[in-house]
């Protein structure tokens, strides 16, 4: 990769090499891309276009369109995450019910907070969907499916399949938001890692691997692993990677 970039003149590399390599690491070039890079290098040598002066304007942590609504959604999602943690606390402290065949936790007391925390996550999900490019159909579809599944899961926590679909949709949305520059990659990675950890705990329990907690509580360990869904979403909404430009003004008319 660096060999191809080395074909460009030094002035070009001083200005663009770092971001160009970042692009190529994100999207490894196929043979046609390699030819395109060689053509670009020839062009850069024949027609130097380098703009040596970089804009000193920093990336201000501006949110997207409708700043307050997006920011509020981020705050609500953050509150939802705290409620999620409280929900797990309430659930694991519920009394163990023994019906003769098996034992389980009575989590009835946590139902209200469960519903509220998932509802607040859906607020964050809606806000993320509003910020991804309108051309990103994958993200919009994932958000729609995740939203529907999340609503169903909020009212029926025992229907794990709805929770799984919501998580999958949110993961796709986060990856797409990261890919299009709306999220920092670290936020998307944390969210996906949380889901992966929850799946790993659940899979280990199903496989019979003894968890370090009592049998009825393993599900709560898996659910606790989902907390990054709220916190990564909230962080991305409160501090987006790339702000939308203020309405551009033509300097010639100023």
């Amino acid at each position, binding site marked *: 990769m660096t060999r191809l970039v080395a074909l460009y003149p030094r002035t070009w590399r001083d200005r663009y090499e770092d971001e160009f390599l970042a692009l190529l690491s994100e999207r490894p070039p196929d043979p046609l891309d390699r030819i395109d890079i060689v053509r670009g*290098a020839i062009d850069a040598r024949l027609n130097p276009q380098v703009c040596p002066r970089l804009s000193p304007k*920093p990336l201000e942590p501006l949110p997207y369109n409708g700043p307050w609504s997006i920011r509020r959604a981020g705050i609500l999602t953050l509150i939802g995450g705290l409620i999620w943690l409280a929900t797990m606390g309430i659930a694991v402290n519920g009394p163990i019910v023994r019906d003769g065949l098996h034992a389980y936790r009575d989590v009835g007391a946590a139902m209200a907070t469960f519903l509220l925390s998932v509802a607040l996550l859906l607020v964050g999900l809606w806000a993320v969907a509003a910020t991804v490019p309108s051309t990103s159909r994958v993200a919009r579809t994932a958000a729609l499916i995740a939203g529907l599944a999340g609503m169903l899961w909020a009212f029926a926590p025992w229907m794990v399949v709805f929770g799984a679909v919501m998580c999958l949709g949110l993961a796709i949305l986060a990856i797409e938001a990261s890919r299009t520059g709306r999220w920092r990659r670290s936020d998307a990675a944390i969210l996906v890692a949380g889901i992966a950890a929850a799946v790993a705990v659940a899979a280990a329990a199903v496989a019979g691997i003894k968890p370090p907690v009592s049998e009825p509580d393993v599900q709560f360990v898996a659910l606790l692993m989902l907390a990054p869904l709220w916190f990564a979403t909230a962080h991305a909404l409160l501090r987006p990677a790339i702000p939308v430009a203020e309405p551009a003004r033509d300097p010639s008319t100023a």
Partner: protein
Amino acid sequence: MTQGLPELGRFAEPSLYILLSLSEGPKHGYAIMADVEAISGIPLGPGTLYGALARLEQRGMIEALEPVERRRPYRLTGLGATTLKAQLDGLAGFARTGLERLRETAR
């Protein structure tokens, strides 16, 4: 004064797509490539992308922002927005004329 894109030669069409993509808000290289492919259905090669970005930046139609995790976003300037509007107006007129002529031929 609006600078035209045709003087950019083979970079004119990619430059138009890039300006259109940035009209939605700042984007870094990879996001521009993905958006251009979504808009036009034509993949934009990395060499062409940066050839066009350098030209647009030098002509003051876009400006670079501070990089985020090595990815540098670009955004449209006022001149870029004016240029894009002029190009789109031209294309709209072209399409209108073409459609009118087709309608007249069909009569």
